């Protein structure tokens, strides 16, 4: 056994397969060079939406997949990010770069403040509480005059494209790279988190809180950490989306649909797996965007019917999500176990 122990100690700590590394390298290369092929604005927009929702779904995956808390009001942090950066720019001319950081900080503070009382709840009760929190943010912002109440904030247009103001009027390519950058950063951060001491402890809390506490893990503290990290990942997407459409209003930014869609995408792809959200998003966003084009305003809800159908099929035939269709040896190594 001594030899086996010595051998085991020499094994690499992270046994990421060569197939995965090659696939990721190829994917990153393709995503970086994609705009060089001169895609139409629609395809750039499609990719931007994929990056954005991939990050948002990953944010939800941190709280639900990694720590086991189902949040139904996660869109609130998207709105907080959007409003924080937009408000600072509109009122004080602060660059959205700093606004993004402020949004992340503010989202974390809100997550901690509401998390302390709420994370004492568990299961359905926690989910219902987050749903109500999500709705109440929308109601508050609809009535809050300082941030434009129901009509929201209109971000003043700059005369020319500007990296300081994060406004690009001639092309979507800069937005593409902005969202891509945050997408890569978020996925790397979540991978790092899931392979850290905190990640291990969060999975312990998710799997069995009693066993976790018998190993010295403070359950509430780790749930709050997961909630705050999740909020910090979600907020920059709100800020960037605000810069993308240059308007923030409560109906768009605190829409309950955001919270539900990120949940659907993660469940579809595979909850608890770092690549699950990306797979779900890569399928559902194109459906959403194409149905929007083909059916226009009147057929705007067709995508939701598709979502519902796909989700029913997944729940019946593949409860572990589409990622479970991949070869087992690839999934289990990369899983946020």
């Amino acid at each position, binding site marked *: *056994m001594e030899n*086996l*122990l010595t051998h*085991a*100690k020499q094994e690499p*700590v992270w046994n990421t397969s060569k197939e995965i590394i090659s696939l990721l390298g190829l994917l990153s290369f393709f995503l970086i060079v994609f705009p060089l092929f001169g895609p139409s604005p629609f395809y750039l927009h499609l990719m931007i939406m994929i990056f954005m929702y991939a990050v948002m779904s990953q944010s939800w995956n941190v709280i639900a997949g990694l720590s086991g808390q189902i949040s139904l009001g996660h869109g609130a942090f998207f709105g907080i990010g959007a409003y924080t950066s937009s408000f600072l720019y509109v009122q004080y001319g602060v660059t959205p770069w700093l606004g993004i950081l402020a949004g992340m900080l503010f989202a974390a503070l809100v997550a901690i403040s509401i998390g302390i009382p709420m994370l004492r709840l568990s299961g359905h009760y926690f989910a219902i509480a987050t749903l109500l929190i999500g709705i109440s943010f929308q109601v508050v912002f609809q009535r809050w005059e300082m941030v434009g109440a129901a009509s929201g904030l209109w971000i003043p247009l700059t005369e020319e494209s500007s990296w300081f103001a994060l406004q690009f009027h001639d092309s979507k390519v800069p937005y593409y790279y902005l969202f891509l950058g945050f997408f890569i950063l978020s996925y790397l951060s979540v991978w790092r988190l899931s*392979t*850290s*001491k905190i990640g*291990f*402890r969060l*999975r*312990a809390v998710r*799997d*069995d809180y*009693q*066993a*976790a*506490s*018998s*190993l*010295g*893990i*403070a*359950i509430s503290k780790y749930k709050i950490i997961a909630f705050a990290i999740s909020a910090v990942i979600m907020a920059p997407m709100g800020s960037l989306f605000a810069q993308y459409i240059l308007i923030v209003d409560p109906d768009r930014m605190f829409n309950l649909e955001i919270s539900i869609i990120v949940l659907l995408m993660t469940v579809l792809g595979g909850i*608890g797996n770092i690549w699950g959200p990306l797979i779900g998003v890569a399928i559902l966003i194109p459906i959403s965007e194409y149905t929007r084009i083909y059916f226009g305003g009147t057929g705007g809800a067709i995508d939701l019917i598709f979502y519902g159908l796909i989700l029913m099929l997944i729940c019946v035939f593949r409860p572990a999500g589409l990622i479970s269709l991949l070869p087992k040896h690839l999934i*289990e190594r990369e*899983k946020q*176990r």
Partner: protein
Amino acid sequence: MSILSVENLGKSFGGIRANHDISFTVDQGEILGIIGPNGAGKSTLFDLITGYTRADTGKVTFDGNDITRLRPDKISNLAIGRTFQKLKPFADLTLLENVMIGAFAKETDIKAARDKALEIIDFVDLIEKRHHFARELSTGQRKRLELARAMAIEPKLLLMDEVTGGVDQKTIPGLVELILKMKASGVTIATIEHNINIIMEISDNILALDQGQNIAYGKPKDIQNNEQVIDAYLGRVDVA
């Protein structure tokens, strides 16, 4: 010298007295066996000591600290490990990851936690299974996993809840050997057991409970001949 002292501990659930006025001590380095019929309050006693259930009355002192009102994680951080009657492995994690989570109680570095976990997994003779998911292990192996995970927090006191329960007969001697190996490594042990032969073999002292009360405490030989214990738990051999 006693490492754990329980004084007049009591807990009721509604009208049911799960534990009533229980007092005993556990000396450093010993194995205390805890016996009693089903429903005697043995697991409740462990829950009270480890903070999973709040005591109505009494006091628990560990290593000079009053731990009666502490949370389970705080108690664990004082170096009290435990296993559960109903196994609680992290089913979707590998054996190695399960034990690493225990090792993180003392280690912050991944490599250090991994090396320590591997040494403990080797100690419980499961090194070949280190990359198996907990859900793939047999009941006996999962019992070893729980022991390894609890050992990883470097406990001074380890509470074991029916380690040999629910495993086949061939597995039992290995588990008993492991418990003795743990004792030899310096860990103080309190163990709930239904297998009377095992408890008599490994215990330095035995606490017998019945209907939530301490009915006897002493050396295995004395307990074996104690009238109250015989009536409540061991039973009499009818010589007609």
